[in-house]
């Protein structure tokens, strides 16, 4: 297949999958979509109390029309619900004009909606989904650029394995903070990869390898590794950009605060292991403090809310003044294997309001591939000569950190929130690909059989997931005899 055809096929697939997810999934059926829509509408129609009240009435009617209550599992009696405040899990939503806990995701979506002047709630909702669709396209364009640059030989494997994650396509085409957070994650890891200066997969080795290794810089393409005489501001550019992305992420979603942690871990991986680079580590921290402080100064409401969440959860974890700390802090429960199970399942497909799955066998096959990938990565990490070893370990550490953070945030309840790993899409997709690749070498396979089987399985999985969605929401088996 020529390069252009591959691009056209993947682009068509991307647009197709996006649009199918925008229009196939009935309104408000994705996780928290109703709240995100209403918060955005709150900004769009700010100050017009009559419109907001009318919006609430119309939305309740839409929820009834599309049997939202039925699909998310609300028991009998939902036909009589008149107000959103009567819906238990929407209790935290209030039609307030001002709230300290505002997310800038809602602010942006709301302001865009305001610009369009759309007044009908259903059209407004689909407009916001389409807005997400364009961000989804941007995410895949960025992925394409990234994989193409760093994996010129097999970029299409990586892009396809990302494109075929059904749940990812669903979430990224819904009205959800995760859309912007995933976009920021994509940008963050593109720059982080650059920052860490991992050698490119397709970079040709110097001819006289032994001599050049001692004289020339190891990763010639990265400006981060140029001699120390490079001006300070240029050297700091990538670091500043990473902190900026982290700050933007924390404005978009509470979980975005973890980006700062990703940045710190990145600094440690880049500089912490080398005593000579200590001054760069200190400089990185200095830049972080400056940029972070200014963001605190400009967006104090948002950061005050974030500190609240962090301290509350830390208190719950350490057991200090747990009163009012809510969920979280259940460290012992992390050992529960069901936690990792639910994360994997919901990463690939757990649609609706985490209500519908495929049968267990599908996930077991997926987990088999993932296990192979993990073993492959461990083998690669153990081999000291592996290029980009530090990056792989960094990716693994981040996945563990993100999973544990999600676990602590939610406590011991069911944690079907694989979508919280979507900002780590680049490290995850790369780890799976690299791991399976490593296993192919280990098993002495001549071609990428494991990677190809994984992608083919994802195609099957995708088709099954799609048919499951259609059957749940659009095909109803009814008997002509009432009551049967």
């Amino acid at each position, binding site marked *: 297949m020529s390069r252009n055809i591959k691009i056209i096929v993947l682009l068509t697939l991307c647009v197709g999958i996006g649009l199918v997810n925008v229009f196939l999934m009935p309104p408000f059926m994705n996780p928290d979509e109703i709240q995100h829509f209403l918060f955005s509408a709150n900004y769009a129609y700010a100050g017009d109390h009559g419109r907001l009240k009318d919006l609430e009435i119309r939305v309740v009617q839409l929820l009834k029309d599309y049997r939202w209550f039925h699909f998310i599992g609300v028991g009998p009696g939902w036909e009589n619900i008149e107000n959103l405040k009567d819906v238990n899990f929407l209790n935290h939503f209030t039609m307030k004009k001002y709230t300290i806990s505002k997310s800038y995701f809602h602010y942006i979506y709301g302001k865009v909606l305001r610009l369009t002047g759309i007044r009908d709630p259903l059209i407004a909702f689909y407009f916001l989904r389409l807005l997400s669709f364009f961000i989804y396209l941007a995410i895949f364009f960025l992925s394409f650029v990234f994989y193409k640059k760093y994996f010129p030989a097999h970029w299409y494997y990586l892009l396809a394995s990302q494109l075929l994650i059904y749940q990812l396509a669903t979430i990224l085409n819904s009205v959800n903070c995760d859309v912007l957070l995933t976009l920021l994650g994509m940008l963050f890891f593109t720059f982080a990869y650059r920052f860490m200066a991992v050698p490119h997969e397709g970079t040709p080795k110097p001819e006289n390898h032994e001599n050049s290794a001692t004289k020339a810089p190891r990763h010639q393409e990265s400006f981060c590794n140029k001699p120390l005489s490079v001006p300070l501001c240029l050297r700091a550019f990538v670091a500043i950009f990473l902190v900026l992305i982290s700050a933007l992420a924390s404005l978009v979603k509470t979980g975005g605060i973890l980006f700062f942690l990703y940045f710190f871990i990145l600094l440690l991986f880049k500089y912490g292991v080398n005593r000579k680079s200590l001054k760069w580590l200190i400089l990185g921290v200095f830049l972080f403090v400056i940029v972070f*402080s*200014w963001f*605190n100064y400009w967006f*104090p*409401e948002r*950061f*005050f809310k974030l500190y*609240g969440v962090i301290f509350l959860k830390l208190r719950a974890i350490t057991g200090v*003044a747990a009163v009012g700390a809510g969920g979280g802090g259940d460290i012992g429960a992390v050992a529960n294997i069901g936690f990792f199970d639910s994360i994997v399942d919901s990463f690939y497909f757990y649609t609706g309001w985490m209500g519908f799955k495929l049968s267990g066998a599908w996930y077991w096959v997926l987990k088999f591939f993932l296990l192979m990938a993990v073993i492959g990565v461990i083998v690669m990490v153990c081999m000291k000569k592996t290029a980009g070893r530090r990056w792989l370990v960094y990716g693994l550490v981040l996945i563990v950190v993100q999973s544990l953070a999600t676990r602590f945030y939610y406590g011991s309840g069911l944690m079907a929130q694989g979508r919280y790993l979507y900002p780590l899409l680049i490290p995850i997709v790369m780890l799976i690909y690299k791991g399976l690749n490593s296993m192919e070498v280990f098993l002495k396979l001549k071609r990428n059989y494991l990677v190809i089987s994984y992608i083919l399985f994802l195609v099957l999985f995708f088709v099954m997931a799609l048919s499951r969605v259609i059957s749940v929401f659009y095909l109803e088996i009814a008997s002509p005899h009432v009551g049967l």
Partner: protein
Amino acid sequence: MNIKKYGQWILLLVILLVSFKAITFTRDLALANYFLHSNKEKAAAYMYRILCDKPFLYRGLRDYQKTLVDNLIVKKAIYARYRDNKNIFDILSRDSKELTVEYFKTLYRDNFYLQYLFPPAPTLPNWKNLDTVSLELLTDKTLNPVSLSLWEKVKPTVDGEFAANLADYCRWQGNTELAEHLGKDFAMAKPIPNPGSPTGRESSKHLLKSLRKKKNLTIDDLQEIRPGSEDFNDMGAFKKKWQFFYISGSKDMRVASFTMGLDGAGENRCLRLMGFFAGSADGKTKSRARGGAMCKEKLSLPRGYYLLSFDYLTVTAREKPSFYLWKGISEVFLPPTGGGWKKVVYFLNNSTGGFTVIKPIFRMWGTGTVLIDNVYFAAITKPTFNFNRTALLYTSRWE
């Protein structure tokens, strides 16, 4: 000189200096939130600093700690007005339209400092309804000139009991000069017993002796459950384990004025509860306002019998002290002692396991002063007696 090398450091220094304000702001923002659940006074102080930079945040911050932040703003405004003749509300209201003097004057309607320093004074204030800010300012000796001049204006509307309580409060807080002036124009009630003296208070040893005599209970039959700083000698432990708690009988929480704290020094330190004013709620004939000290932590209560004992003193014969343990256990009202210490011995029957926890509250209803000391709470491991009621109370009859 290596210009490039030093230029880099100068650049960093400039960035640091330019960002200094943002860094301190970030520190205040984080610490305000950190102390929100552990030390509300500190949290409010940091919130005040945040508001000085960004007054528009008031609307958001008040959701978290409204009263304390308001208190700080009013206190700072009073100091600024008195010392530098500045009106900080003018500055604050530039960024946040809500932070006007009128808004705070409505909130602190009965605060004579605020009302007189920012005239005009309201038409129907209740000067006896002292708020936290007034109580704090009354203890500051440097403010005595303004406190005394305002007292002259307020005096015609208050009575002797209020003046006596206020004078007593100032004496307790170390502002004796103001205390003397406050009591000058009124026939004062009898002097407050010196809490530094152990007279009348019994030690735990004495209690055990009497328990053995009356109920055949020995130290081996009791397992002490510490509700906190029970002898109130350790100020740090007290702050950690007890908190101020008050309820007024109406929707307007400023209708009553109470305070609490430790009185005396050393081993004879005791808990002091004071009520200055207790207003009646609309449509109610009797005041329901009460205030006092609440144990911060719940104490678990397995099945069995329990003993609670403490000494208490009311300054006059009008106070209404009480203690409350948990929902379902009747609040226990204690008779006033008229200046002498009395021992309370209270047996709680939880043999059916009806209560799983308790959270002791010592409080008083209405005005006056109550002192409490030697709180002792223990599980009776070997009950030597039975009773069918939920509780048995001994006060005067114990002796």
